């Protein structure tokens, strides 16, 4: 198994944390992992994204040309990464914010109102958790829900750990709302 994920959104949507969480969880389950933030342009603002590779084998490049999975938390991310997903790949997109839905026919397109799910728990910053929930439902082989729950405590600094219960609730909401789909 080798999955190459790109997680994208704007700053403040916890894109890097999402990647780290998946990596730590997978690492604790004995997988090879790598995580690298996008830093392609020395500039501010715009979209943030990171690339995550989770695999049973040694990882070559942490840089992903054609991701097998993309999680797009805002509109510009869909615009930017939809064309790059490899045929047959998975694109999870945040229907709360994205106005122009993805259209490719050769992908599994999964919409999730991630920001709304987050807002319903009183924060607009945890859409990423909902998206993780969706991912875990759709790709159970990557890493288990339990492992992600455990990783949350490892990754989040002590100071912010008090938000973890909320984060978990949103994760599970995302998990529940998402339905298994067959490949495109």
């Amino acid at each position, binding site marked *: 198994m080798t999955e190459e994920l790109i997680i994208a959104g*704007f700053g403040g949507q916890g894109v890097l944390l999402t990647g780290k969480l998946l990596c730590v969880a997978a690492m604790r389950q004995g997988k090879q992992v790598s995580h690298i933030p996008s830093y392609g342009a020395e500039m501010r*603002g715009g979209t943030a994204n990171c690339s995550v590779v989770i695999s049973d084998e040694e990882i070559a490049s942490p840089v992903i040309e054609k991701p097998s999975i993309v999680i797009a938390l*805002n*509109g*510009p991310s869909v615009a930017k990464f939809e064309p790059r997903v490899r045929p047959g790949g998975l694109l999870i997109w945040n229907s709360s*914010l994205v*106005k122009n839905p993805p259209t490719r026919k050769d992908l599994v397109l999964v919409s999730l109102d991630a920001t709304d799910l987050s807002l319903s728990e009183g924060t607009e910053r945890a859409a990423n958790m909902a998206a993780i929930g969706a991912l875990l439902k759709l790709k159970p082989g990557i890493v288990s829900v339990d492992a992600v729950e455990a990783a949350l405590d490892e990754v989040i600094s002590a100071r912010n750990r008090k938000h973890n219960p909320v984060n978990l609730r949103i994760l599970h909401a995302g998990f529940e709302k998402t339905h298994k789909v067959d490949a495109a």
Partner: protein
Amino acid sequence: MNRGIPIIDKERCKGCGLCIVNCPKDILAKTSDVNDQGAYYTVCTDESLCIACGACALMCPDAAIEINKLVEAV
């Protein structure tokens, strides 16, 4: 009469809110809608109150606001 119309370019707006807090007439506000860049952009809630002071336009880092002044035609 000192009246004007703020014209806000929705797609240029990054939603920083600097115009909002500097409008003396308090007639600018963030939308709950996002523009194509994903920003909660600003709109004018009541153009009729605008005094064409230009504060919003001056403040806007993205030059998203232009002001039209209303003058009596002779």
